[in-house]
């Protein structure tokens, strides 16, 4: 097995409860650790898997600091401070960008309030560098409406990376994509995760197979019998299971068996 260690906590969710007219989320507890692999900038890719309508989007917004839970806290960063909007990047399912700005301007805007301190020239160079890395260089002058779904997704992810956020939440990143595109998205996300040691991608999805294939850790969000509200019912350490960091893992028989088991559970 590849040598690795799980070090400091990067994101910690403590006793989160959310209810409106009924309980949506109940006693959500989990932690994401910094995974260190010698000689690599190994970021973290974590999945929150649950079926549609279970409350994933609400948890997504709580993690991003966009809504407050009724009780509980979300702590982020090495300092473990309560999350504030802007500390965690989000990539919505429909890849929201500002339609009145070109792709370049959208990316430039992300750097306006960024934690990265660069001068204008350096900022432009960084944008061009990312655009080249993620096949967007020839689309920088286009408006978002001129991009394909995949290009929009890439622009949206890069926009969040450029804010300097190490933590990025992705809502259903595989939704509505064909098999070929899914492979490209997985490749892209793995690339993003390895840009920095602390980069942490949290994928919120109902797509069990692809989420497990890309992740090092997965949390299953489901309802327990006779209890209201969804909670974390299972944590899968995919590194320990030998399923992480393997591009061909979807063809593995044991992995397929795990996928079938989880599909049955959610």
């Amino acid at each position: 097995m590849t040598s690795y260690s799980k070090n400091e906590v990067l994101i910690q969710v403590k006793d989160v409860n959310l209810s409106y007219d009924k309980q949506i989320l109940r006693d959500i507890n989990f932690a994401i650790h910094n995974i260190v692999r010698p000689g690599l900038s190994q970021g973290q890719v974590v999945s929150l898997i649950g079926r549609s309508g279970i409350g994933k989007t609400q948890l997504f917004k709580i993690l991003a600091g966009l809504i407050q839970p009724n009780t509980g806290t979300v702590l982020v960063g090495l300092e473990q401070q309560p999350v504030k909007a802007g500390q965690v990047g989000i990539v919505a399912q429909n890849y929201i960008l500002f339609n009145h700005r070109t792709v370049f301007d959208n990316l430039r805007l992300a750097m306006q309030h960024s934690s990265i301190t660069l001068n204008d020239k350096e900022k432009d160079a960084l944008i061009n560098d990312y655009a080249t890395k993620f096949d967007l260089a020839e689309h920088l002058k286009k408006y978002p409406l001129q991009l394909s779904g995949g290009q929009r997704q890439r622009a949206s992810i890069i926009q969040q990376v450029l804010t300097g956020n190490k933590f990025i939440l992705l809502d259903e990143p595989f939704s509505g994509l064909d098999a070929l595109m899914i492979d490209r998205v997985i490749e892209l996300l793995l690339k993003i995760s390895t840009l920095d040691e602390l980069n942490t991608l949290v994928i919120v999805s109902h797509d069990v197979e692809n989420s497990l294939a890309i992740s090092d850790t997965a949390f299953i969000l489901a309802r327990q019998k006779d209890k209201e509200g969804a909670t974390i019912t299972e944590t899968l350490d995919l590194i320990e299971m030998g399923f992480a960091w393997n591009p061909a893992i979807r063809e593995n028989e044991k992995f397929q068996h795990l996928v079938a088991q989880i599909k049955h559970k959610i």
Partner: protein
Amino acid sequence: MELLKTIFSPLTQIKGRTSIILIVVEAFLALLLWEIVGQNGLIPVPSKILTSVVAIVTSSYFVDNLFSSLTLTFTGMGISIVLALLVSYLSLIPVFAPIAKFIVKCRYLTLTGLIFLFTLLTQDGHQLKLSLLIFGIVPFFVTSLLAIIEAINVQEYELCKTLRMNNWQTLWEVVIIGRLDQVFEVMRQNFAIAWMMITMVEGLSMSEGGLGTMLIKSNKYIDLGTVFGILVIIFALGIFFDFLLRNLRHWLFPYTKIQVKK
């Protein structure tokens, strides 16, 4: 034969050129029918209206009247846009929201009963006309602008938060510059209301002239040829400005062309 089948089939997309041919042919047929059937009627036929249009346009008083109407319309529109934008943007600050809601309801307030009040409040005929025009347009403007603001996807505000913008920066990015193209579209649509109202308000104070004044005077003497001639001019100018504003929108905001294509 295939073309005939296409133009009579529901939900069929027709190409731009076919669409133009259809408009021209149908307009021509309608005018021809009017010309033939209306020979002995009270309403003047197209050829007589066309003669009147030429006579009006070449008359010495036309340019002055046209200029007077256009000045009043553009001044009214300009002030109305500024007021409506101010009210709409301020409506996002809770303390100003009731004012915006009240102005929206003012669409149901008739101008006729308020003319006396406006006469007392204004100093001359020009101010009276301008005030009535603004009072007539602003509620419609604010209604359309508030609809645009309400239709904004909440995810855009969330994106601003993740990009670490404060509330003022979010307001600027999403509501003000992000919706400027739609404001322009609202302006184009409401120009029609202003242009329609111009003839009414010009009738309240005729000293400055204007197309409305010309229309009322011709109506008084039942000079139907001139009345219809002026109506045609007003109609044509309205369509011309609509075309101009639409193209100006595409030029100022190139991304709106992509939306149209999609």
